């Protein structure tokens, strides 16, 4: 049982997950440094799989290294780059090293990256991959071939409550839950009313009975960063007045502070929704704001009453 799955099952406190930075070099020390920074504040961290269709050190290598440095990985697997055989092999292979949390994603298109000439694979779609990954945990490959000592897996996925067709997103979350997703990290979004409607719908149709919802918030420093996400990141749209209010906050420092407050507001709102089990953090600031955010919110391992009392959390 992964720590993430235990925390979610207990439901004692909101869980905190985050995004691991992309690694291209610097050996294991680079991973250790990043792991040390995140470890005190988060419960588990995403080992990304060629995010935005840019090649980096692989999901499996990062996930394995993270777990060796005592940081619990959530290994992303995207359908863009590998066929069903390779994806199953990665999941089963990483599990030999103790990687249990798997997040199944469609993946941004190759045209979002710096090698748009690449062949796109999409042999499975994300929902199919969820079911295939769940099957590995039950002791068989997609072919049906048995795995004698099956891996312990905690399978999840991603859903975007903010992208059209809005009315359908709850159904899609349900489909993923039924396929075997036990957690859903939600896409970054700046429309609180859409998140609210989505979470309410998920509670109504029963998604949250089996599956934890983890909305994503992102720490940014400038209005430019918001505009960039709005323009360039697939599936993210930010209302113009939100960008304008951050841009109009004053000098550089005031803008950075307004950006932080925006993230804090969005996080508080997300965590206030019944049906939300925690939060996923993406940090583009790297200036200690992640620590400030979990402190202001009072969540994460540093604020775990039970773990702190029994002395299992380091400060």
């Amino acid at each position, binding site marked *: 049982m992964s720590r993430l799955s235990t925390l979610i099952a207990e439901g004692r406190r909101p869980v905190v997950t985050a995004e691991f930075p992309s690694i291209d070099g610097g050996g294991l020390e680079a991973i250790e440094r990043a792991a040390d920074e995140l470890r005190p504040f988060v419960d588990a961290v995403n080992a990304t799989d060629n995010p935005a269709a840019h090649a980096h050190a692989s999901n499996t290598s990062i996930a394995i290294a993270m777990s060796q440095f005592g940081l619990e990985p959530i290994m992303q697997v995207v359908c863009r780059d590998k066929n069903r055989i390779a994806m199953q092999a990665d999941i089963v292979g990483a599990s030999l090293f103790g990687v249990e949390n798997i997040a199944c994603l469609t993946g941004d298109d190759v045209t979002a990256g710096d090698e748009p000439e690449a062949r*796109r694979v999409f042999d499975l779609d994300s929902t199919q991959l969820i079911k*295939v990954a769940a099957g590995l945990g039950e002791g*068989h490959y*997609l072919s*049906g071939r048995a795995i004698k000592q099956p891996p312990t897996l905690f399978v999840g996925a991603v859903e975007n409550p903010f992208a059209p*067709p809005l009315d359908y997103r709850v159904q899609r979350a349900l489909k993923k839950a039924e396929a075997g997703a036990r957690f859903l990290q939600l896409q970054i979004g700046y429309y609180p009313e859409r998140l609210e409607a989505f979470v309410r719908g998920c509670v109504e149709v029963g998604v949250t009975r089996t599956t934890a919802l983890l909305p994503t918030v992102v720490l940014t420093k400038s209005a430019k960063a918001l505009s960039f996400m709005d323009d360039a990141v697939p599936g993210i749209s930010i209302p113009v007045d939100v960008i304008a209010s951050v841009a109009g906050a004053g000098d550089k420092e005031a803008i950075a502070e307004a950006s932080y407050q925006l993230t804090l507001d969005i996080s508080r709102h997300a965590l206030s929704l019944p049906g939300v089990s925690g939060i996923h953090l993406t940090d583009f600031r790297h200036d200690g704001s992640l620590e400030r955010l979990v402190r202001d919110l009072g969540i994460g391992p540093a604020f775990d009453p039970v773990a702190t009392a029994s002395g299992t959390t380091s400060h």
Partner: protein
Amino acid sequence: MPKLLPLIEHAVKKPVWDCRMCGQCVLHSTGMTCPMTCPKTLRNGPCGGVRENGNCEVKPDMRCVWVTAEHRSHSPAMPRHWEEEFNDLRPPVDNRLQGTSSWVNFVTKRDQRTPRGWQGAAHDAHSAVPGASMVEIDDPTSLPEGFHS
């Protein structure tokens, strides 16, 4: 005739649905919108990249195939059970059927055959196959047992 059918099917379905001849047609359950025209060939709903205006992440000038599909699935012109099947979990594509006639594969039920693991049960090489409820129809594209390199 078997050789001719894929040609006829393509001639009929290409102009109307931009059919890609995957050989395992799901049009009725996807609002009569071919999911293989999605640049990511997604068969279980839209990706998270759909633009705010409902257009495709990959082709900004094209409406997302799944936005159209979802909209059409509610059309009163279509039978109710097609709408209900919209959110069914569709199995992975059998890439061996590419270019064959889905009409033939429908009649022979070849298009319903899925890997054993998809039905949820493990088997070991020597025991009988659990969950294989369907009569297996002759498949000219599959290799005989023991033909693995």
